[in-house]
C-alpha cells in the first residue's frame, strides 16, 4: 500500500519535471521524487526490520536541503536576468 503511494508520488514528480515549464514547479517535482524514494526506503526498512534504510533517509534529507539551498539562489539569479520562470527561456545556456 505504502509502496504503491511511493510509486505514484515518483511518477507524478517525474511527469511534472518532464512536462511543466515553470522552474520552481520543476524543483518541487524533484523534491516530490526524492520524498517518494524516502517513503519507499522507510517502508523497506520496516519490512526487513533493519535500521539502515531509515538512516539513509536522514542522509537524503541533509543532501536535499543542501541541494535546494544551491538550486533556489540559481533560479533566483536566472529570473533576475530574464524576468521569467519558464525553462524554455534558458535554452541558450547550452554549451
Amino acid at each position, binding site marked *: 500500500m505504502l509502496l504503491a503511494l511511493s510509486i505514484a508520488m515518483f511518477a507524478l514528480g517525474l511527469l511534472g519535471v*518532464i512536462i511543466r515549464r515553470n522552474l520552481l514547479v520543476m524543483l518541487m517535482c524533484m523534491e516530490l521524487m526524492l520524498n517518494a524514494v524516502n517513503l519507499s526506503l522507510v517502508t523497506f526498512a520496516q519490512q526487513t526490520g533493519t535500521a539502515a534504510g531509515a538512516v539513509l533517509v536522514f542522509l537524503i534529507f541533509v543532501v536535499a536541503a543542501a541541494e535546494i539551498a544551491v538550486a533556489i539562489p540559481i533560479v533566483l539569479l536566472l529570473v533576475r536576468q530574464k524576468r521569467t520562470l519558464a525553462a524554455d527561456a534558458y*535554452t541558450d545556456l547550452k554549451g
Partner: protein
Amino acid sequence: MPHPLTLIVVLPLVGFVLNGLLGNRLGKPFVTAVGCGLPILSFLLAIKCFVDLSTGGVPLMETAYTWARIGGSTFEIAFYFDRLSAVMTLIVTGVGSVIHVYSTGYMHEDKSFARFFAYLNLFLFFMLSLVLGRSLLVLFVGWEGVGLASYLLIGFWFEDPVNARAGKKAFVTNRIGDAGFLLGMFLLYWAFGTLDMDKINAAFTGGPAPAISASLAGILLFIGASGKSAQIPLHVWLPDAMAGPTPVSALIHAATMVTAGVYLVARMSGLYLHAPEASAVVTVIGAATAFFAATIAVTQTDIKKVLAYSTVSQLGFMFVALGVGAYGVGIFHVYTHAFFKACLFLGAGSVIHALAGEQDIRKMGGLAKRIPITFWTFAIATAAIAGIPPLAGFFSKDEILWYAFASSAGGSPLLWAVMAATALMTAFYMFRLLWLVFLTPSRMEPEVEHHVHESPLSMTGVLMILAVLSAVGGFFALPHFLEGLLPLPKLPETVHHFEKPLLILSVVIAATGLAGAWYVFGAGLERSSGLARRFASMHRTLSNKYYVDEAYELFIGRPLVWISDWVFLRLGDRVLLDGSLNGMARLAQRAAGVLGRVQTGSLHRYVFFVLLGSLAALAWSFRHG
C-alpha cells in the same frame, strides 16, 4: 715509432676549427699563420712519411679509430700510405700549401678572409682522408666532404645568386655520380665482406675468381668517378664552378679534387684489370670527353671557362690512360697536370687581379710587358700543357698517346687519332689564350688599362714555383716509380718500331697547334671573327657548349618540374594528402553537427532522455537479473 699519418689528415681540420671559430676575432695575421702553416706542416709530415716509405719499402698503415663493429665486420678509420697515395698526398699538400700562400695575396681585400681559409683547410682535410683512406668507406667520407667544401667555395660569394646556383649545380650533379659509387660499394661489400681496397684488389688479382661481375662494380664506381671528375655526361658542373674565387678553381677544380675520380680508378686497378668492359667504358667516355671539351674550349671567351674546359679535356686524357690499363701513366698526368693547371689558373687569377675583375679575353691583350712575371709563368705552363718538349706535359701526354696507340688492353690507331686531334686542339686553344691575353695589341678599356699592376710577391712567388715544377716535373719517371703497384699494360711485339715516329709526331702536333694559334690570333681578333662568320652554325654550337645544358633542361629539368608540379604537388600533396586530412576534418564537423542537435538546452528533453536511459537500464537488469 708510430707514423704520423693521422696527423697529416687532422692538421688541416684543426686549421678549419681555429679559423672558423676564432678567425674573425683574431685578425688576418692569425688566419694567415694558421691557414698556411698547418697545410705546410702537413706537407712536411708527408715528406717524412715518404722517406719512411722509401727506406722501409712496405706500405705504412695506421688505424685512427674504430668506427663501428657490426656483426663480424669492423669498420675502421684507417690510413694507408703506399706509393700511389704518397704521390697523391704530396700533390695535395704541396700544391695545396702554395695555393694557400697565393690566396693570402689574392683574397687580401675580401671581408670573409677567415671564412675562406677555414673552407680551404676543410677541403684539405677531406681531400687527405680521401687519398689516405684505406677502405672505400673512408674514401667515400672524404669524397662527400670535398664535394661539400667545393659547394661552399663555389658559392663563396653567395650574395650573387648566380654563384650560389653554380654551387648547387655542382653539388647536385655530383650526387648523381655518388649514387653509382654507393651502389658499387654495396656490391663489393656484399661480395667480399670488406671495404678495404687493398683486400679487394688482392681478392681480384689472386685466388679464385670472385663471384661478382667485376665489370658491373667497375662501371658503378666509374659513374661516381665521372661525377667527381666531370666526365660526359656529368661534366656540366665544372665550367660553372668557375664562379668561385680563382685560387679555389686552381686547387679544387683543376689540381686536386677533380682528379679524385682518376685516383679512385687507379686505386681499384686490381678490379679494373679484370673488368675489360668497364675499362672499355672508361676509355670511350674519357676519349669523348677529351675531344668534345677541347672543341668547346676553342670558342670560349672567358679566361677561366677556357681553362675549365681544358681541365675537363685533360681529365679525359687521364681516363683514357686508365682505360687502356696504363694506370701509372694516368697518375703521371694527374701529377704534371696539377702543376701546370694550377699555374695557369693562378696566372689567370693574377691577370684578373691586375684587371680588377675583368675575365673576358676579348677585352685583354698586350699584358706581356705590363705584368711580365705572370706572363712568363703563364707561357711556361701553356707550353707545358700543349706538350712542347721538354716541359712536364709533354712527357705525360706523350705516354698517354703512346699507350692509347699500343696498349694490348684496348689501344688502337683510331683511339690514338682521336687523342692526337685533341692534343692538337689543346695546343691551339692554349696558345690562343696566351696570344689574346698577353701578346696581341691591347683591347682593354682605357680606365682598366690605367690601373694594371703586377701582383704582390705572395702571388708571383707561387707562380714561379709552379712554373719551375711545370718545366721540370716531367723528368721524374712516375710510371716507373709506381710500376710495382700499378703494372703497365703489355705491348704487342709489332708496335715497337712505331715508338720513335709517334714521339716525333706528337712534337709536330704541339708545334702545329702553336703555329695555328699564332696564324689565327697573332694579330688580334680580325682573322678569327672572319672564320667565325664563315662557320657560323658550328661556331654557335661550340660557343653554346653543344647545348648540353639546354638539353638537360628540356629532357630532365622540365619533366621533373612537371612531375613535381602535377603529380607530387597537385595530385599527391593537394588532392591526396590535404584532401584526406581535410576530408576527415569535414567528416568530424558534419558528425558533430548531427550530434549537436541532441543538445537543445531544453531541460525537459534531457530529463526525458534520462528517463529513457533508466528504463533501458531497468529492462536490461531484469533480463539479465
